[in-house]
């Protein structure tokens, strides 16, 4: 479903932001790309949607978007969730770009909390909405301190935290926003994606850009960059595994949402990535409870 939207909102610039703001964000993006994983401060603007609702991702998308781009917006892996619909509608109104739900057709994908299941390719940009960009923030609340820790590449604090998990629970108890090391230097917050998605960041053919509006930071992972989830020799990084396939399309090895069906413990597990699920079903794949859809 690729539709051209030709109803730009009058009175605002292409993609809403004024050109000066776009240049400021573009300069930050270039430095972010040159220093993978480092959080570049930028003068985040007040957007017409609330802080914490994707203003960072929206500003990054607005700064890179051109007339020939094809935009996809997802939240929780789905194109249909309310905030994804709202952000897609924002760009449909303020920029004259085609929008799509198909991962492979998109040139720019703005996301909150997921990386699509379909492999990304060269020529795509994945824009993440980030609430708290600082991976050390919950260990050290002070910006002046965490900045020093990054400058010194002093990440012992993070390893201590993960190791305390192991001591207490027998394994690392971080399930999302799982910290990664980028290109052997900066420790970075991948945004609150489940750690299931972390391996997709490594050596990814697409450019990954991260925007945190309220916290005023932009960072980047260039294509084909080593992204390593922090772990220990005796406790290697592991992702969540689901013990059943998607109930609608039968996909295995994908991230599933748990949907409650009644108040008596009835539930089904379905693809979190709705586009992936729909494409598989269109190709004839059928899950055990496809009748529910």
């Amino acid at each position, binding site marked *: 479903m690729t539709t051209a939207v030709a109803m730009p909102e009058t009175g*605002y610039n292409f993609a809403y932001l*004024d050109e000066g703001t776009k240049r400021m964000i573009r300069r930050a993006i270039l430095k972010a790309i040159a220093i993978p994983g480092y959080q570049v*401060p*930028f*003068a*985040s*603007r*007040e*957007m*017409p949607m*609330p*802080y*914490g*609702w994707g*203003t960072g991702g929206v500003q990054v998308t607005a700064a890179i978007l051109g007339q020939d781009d094809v935009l996809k917006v997802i*939240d*929780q*892996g*789905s194109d*249909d*969730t*309310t*905030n*994804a*619909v709202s952000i897609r*509608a924002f760009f449909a109104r303020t920029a004259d770009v085609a929008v799509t739900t198909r991962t492979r057709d998109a040139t720019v994908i703005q996301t*909150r*909390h*997921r990386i699509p299941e379909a492999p990304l390719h060269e020529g795509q940009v994945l824009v993440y909405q980030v*609430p708290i960009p600082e991976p050390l923030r919950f260990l050290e*609340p*002070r*910006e*002046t301190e965490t900045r020093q820790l990054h400058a010194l590449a002093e990440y012992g604090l993070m390893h201590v935290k993960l190791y305390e998990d192991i001591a207490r*629970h*027998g394994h690392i*108890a971080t*399930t*999302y*926003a799982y910290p990664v090391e980028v290109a052997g230097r900066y420790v970075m917050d991948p945004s*609150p*994606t*489940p*750690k*299931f998605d972390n391996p997709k960041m490594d050596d990814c053919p697409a450019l990954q850009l991260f925007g945190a509006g*309220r916290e*005023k*930071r932009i960072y980047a992972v260039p294509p084909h960059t080593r992204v390593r989830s922090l772990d220990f020799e005796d406790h290697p990084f592991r992702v*969540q595994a689901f013990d059943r396939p998607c109930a*609608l399309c039968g996909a295995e090895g994908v*991230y*599933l*949402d*748990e*949907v409650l069906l009644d108040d008596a413990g009835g539930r*089904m597990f*379905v693809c*979190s990535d709705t586009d992936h699920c729909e494409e598989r079903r269109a190709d004839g794949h059928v899950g055990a409870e496809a009748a*529910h*859809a």
Partner: protein
Amino acid sequence: MYVAVKGGEAAIANAHRLLAESRRGDVSVPDLSVAQIREQMALLVDRVMTEGSLHDPDLAALALKQARGDLIEAVFLVRAYRTTLPRFGASEPVETGAMTLRRRISATYKDLPGGQVLGPTFDYTHRLIDFALAAEGEAPVAEEAEPLADAAHAPRVTDLLGHDGLIEPSAPDDGTPPGDLTREPLDFPADRALRLQALARGDEGFVLALGYSTQRGYGRTHPFVGEIRVGTVAVEFVPEELGFPVPLGEVALTECQMVNQFHGSAETPPQFTRGYGLAFGQSERKAMAMALVDRALRAEELGEPVGAPAQDQEFVLAHCDALQATGFVEHLKLPHYVDFQAELELVRRLRAEHAARHAPSETEMKEAAE
């Protein structure tokens, strides 16, 4: 069943139509005009202008109408609009010493040049609900007094103290333009001009509570209200091509100069120090609270121990903005089911492991009992 998970553009559009209807309320009650809000909810309009960082009473009143009276939502509308406005430059500093006064009080001197002018104030009113106001139509008129002989000359109390060297001098203007946290990312440590900008835009409730906390011992500053003045000042702008100031108009301001004790240090003799607050319109509570927190945030500069929340600039500046706070608190309404699923899986696994660990011990206990 599963279809209900999908949000959909229709649902959003419907919700917004319902919002518009709810905003209007009962259509048998006359529609509220922007002018009515501007004139009769003036202090609310002032607060929207202050926290919205935009002096435009009509726009603030319209935002309040659109926001159904939700203050932070109105500030949000004003701020989002403000960001899109072209910037021509910075005005000349306004001269509050030459303010056309509507109110001016000092708590440090019984009488002073320019006099004490109470002006329109809730102070000393008895807070009794005035049921007469429920019967509409009355337009009270205040009698006009003879102008005071020296009303035109009301020097700032801090300037009077400054003549005797009793208060620290204002930092001289070294010509560097003040920073602007709407144009550059806030960086710590932030200088005083940036801190004041953040506090002026800050949520009144948050700044009030912090100011209050300094009075209760969390970073005590021994404050006196040197002066509160409310009135209008002229705004002037120097266009690049003209090179001389051109008047743009007037803005209404409330200024609070707090005078605080300071015991001095090895280099500095004992003298009073300053805390400063400034807000649009008549916003005395905000200006006073801001002045308290400004002074508390100067603790490090003045060599005082730093430990209380109000003295901690990273804490204060990172949390004083109502829009940032409300956005992030309210974003918890957004779907988080992907992360929740990850946590569910972990909790189930931990519970299973816990049960496995405890199952044998129960057997052991039974054996011991037998």
